[in-house]
């Protein structure tokens, strides 16, 4: 570790992993509830489990992004963080707010939580993914602003690189679009319209900048390829991501009451959305091909390269499958959407956070890479998680196809009802649950690899060679 303040990333990474485990546990509960509807009812109803599963995902990824930022910013700017103390305070505020919110979800009925937190004075609750009590949303906004202040002050005083600029732009966008979580107009059309400004413009807009920056950082460090080459790719990738992603928001405006022209804009621009992901994949492989040294941390490279492949499949290919308006007319909100959601989030964001943790954690503990034994386990965990997630995706796709076939394509009289259709896909749900368990095993292996790393200290070169890396 070159800069002392990088160590503030540690609690962020550790807490992210705790929440990740929580997310998977609730994923397994949900997977079971798809088969046995009253599993754990009334303690954990389906809607609560789903809320916890999705909210935990977003929050742990945010912890991961923040940790990644605190880790890579000092190296990019070549100076210490503006305020490590602020970073530590914000960690505790964010962790406390997140934990209390999850406890609130689980301890009391949602309506009671809304009442307790005074939702009626400033109503923002009750919307998918934005279920957090208003007070939590305000807390999050304050955390983002404090975090941004710390980031911008650090960037301003240090060396300006394309990586840090792209990352900062992404983080500013993240904070800016969060503000739409507070806009809750009475018109349902307007509500949904701007709801997507948070949900879509995060994951298919500004988060892609964060992803691109972290990926570029890892590739610069592990391949030793010239910054100039990496930066050029990064510029083009984010330009494509923004051109396709911003107007691609239109694919959410098809059938919600927005003007008809969104059918065209949404279809055309989201058809381009796979391109930046494809370019990311080409970028990663061409950097590997041009590499000037072999970094001892093979596990981190595996995660980073794997991330680009899975993101292309999940966000790119599976997104395209159902993005054209005439197709989406039938597939809207079926298990096909769930298939896309799972692989896209895993490929693009889960894997990049796991990659940066994999790269940073050994360095934060004074070594360039973990022991070979630990890395082998970690790479095995990458394959286990990735194959399991691919299986989940394929099975949900199959479920989606059956659902569309029985429930959506026939005329009103011939169509099967929602619950009857669900019964018809129970066998697929069982297989999906098995794949989910296997994913959980992959997570366990990933975490175990860090325990193995702490116990086996044969590792690679110490961190002295770092001067050559900047």
């Amino acid at each position, binding site marked *: 570790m070159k800069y002392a303040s990088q160590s503030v990333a540690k609690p962020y990474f550790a807490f992210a992993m705790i929440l990740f485990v929580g997310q998977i546990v609730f994923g397994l509960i949900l997977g079971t509830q798809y088969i046995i509807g009253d599993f754990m009812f009334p303690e954990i109803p389906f809607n609560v489990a789903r809320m916890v599963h999705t909210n935990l995902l977003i929050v742990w990824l945010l912890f991961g992004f923040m940790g990644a930022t605190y880790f890579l910013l000092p190296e990019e700017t070549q100076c210490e963080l503006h305020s490590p103390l602020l970073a530590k305070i914000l960690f505790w505020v964010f962790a406390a707010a997140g934990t209390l919110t999850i406890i609130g979800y689980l301890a009391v009925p949602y309506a009671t939580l809304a009442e307790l937190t005074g939702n009626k004075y400033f109503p923002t609750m009750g919307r998918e993914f934005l279920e957090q009590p208003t007070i939590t949303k305000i807390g999050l906004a304050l955390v983002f602003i404090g975090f941004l202040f710390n980031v911008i002050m650090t960037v301003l005083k240090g060396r300006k690189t394309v990586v840090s600029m792209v990352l900062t732009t992404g983080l500013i966008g993240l904070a800016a679009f969060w503000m739409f979580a507070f806009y809750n107009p009475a018109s349902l059309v307007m509500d949904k319209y701007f709801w997507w400004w948070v949900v879509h413009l995060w994951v298919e807009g500004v988060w892609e900048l964060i992803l691109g920056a972290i990926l570029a950082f890892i590739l610069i460090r592990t391949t030793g390829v010239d910054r100039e080459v990496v930066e050029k790719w990064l510029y083009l990738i984010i330009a494509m991501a923004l051109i*396709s992603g911003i107007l691609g928001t239109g694919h959410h405006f098809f059938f919600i009451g927005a*003007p008809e*022209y969104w059918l*065209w804009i949404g279809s*055309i*621009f989201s058809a381009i959305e796979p391109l930046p992901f494809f*370019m990311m994949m*080409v970028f990663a492989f061409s950097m590997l091909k041009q590499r000037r040294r072999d970094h001892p941390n093979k596990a981190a490279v595996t995660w980073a390269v794997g991330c680009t492949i899975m993101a292309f499949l999940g966000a790119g290919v599976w997104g395209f499958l159902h993005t054209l308006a005439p197709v989406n007319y039938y597939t809207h909100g079926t298990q096909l959407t769930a298939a896309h959601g799972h692989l896209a989030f895993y490929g693009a964001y889960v894997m990049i956070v796991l990659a940066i943790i994999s790269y940073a954690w050994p360095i934060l503990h004074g070594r360039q890479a973990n022991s070979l034994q630990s890395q082998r386990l970690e790479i095995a965990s990458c394959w286990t998680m990735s194959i399991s997630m691919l299986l989940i995706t394929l099975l949900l796709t199959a479920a989606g196809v059956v659902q569309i076939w029985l429930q959506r394509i026939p005329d009103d009289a011939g169509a099967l009802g929602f619950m009857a259709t669900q019964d018809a896909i129970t066998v697929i749900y069982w297989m999906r649950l098995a794949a989910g368990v296997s994913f959980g095993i992959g997570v366990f292996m990933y975490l175990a690899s860090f325990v193995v790393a702490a116990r086996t200290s044969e590792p690679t070169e110490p961190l002295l060679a770092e001067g050559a890396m900047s």
Partner: protein
Amino acid sequence: MNAPERINLPLSEAVTEEEIPGDLAMWFFIFAELAVFALLLGGMAFARGTWPEMFSAGVATLHPEAGLINTLALLTGSYAVARGVAAVRERRLEKLPVWFFWGALSGVFYVVVKSVEYVQLFNAGYNLRTNTFYFFYFFTTFFHLMHVVLGMVILLVVARRWQRQVYQTAETRRMAADSAASYWHMVDLVWLMLFPLLYILP
């Protein structure tokens, strides 16, 4: 034809036949952009086939003269940009910023003419929501307009960096000049498709 002249060029600034002009990454970007426009044009062709009368009526309200003027403006711009690249090959390096500047200026002219057209159509009561024809007209041409602006920015940035001698080697100079010129020609090419399809085809 005076093709043999090329043999006399100093090797350092010459380009071999096998290489693509400019940066591979820029070509990725150009193909991505062309893919977007291809989809837009494809959508437009489909819509035209579905609602031919709406399209005929819409085309009649446009001003083909303005479209023609803009076509000439962009072609002139492309000529200037190509002269800039040719000047580099002939080792008259100081000429490039001037030619690129003229290229960008043609873009300014284009933007002004296009804006006047938009204002006229808005005043006549047409907008993005009037019908599918006007959606395609306004959206596609505005999206293209944004590319003209981006093309101008790229030309001016390269010209400025050229003057400040950021590009030190023959290789980086050729890359920068060819990449910027390729992007500009792409913008021009797209307009050459849009103009007849939107303004001329009855």
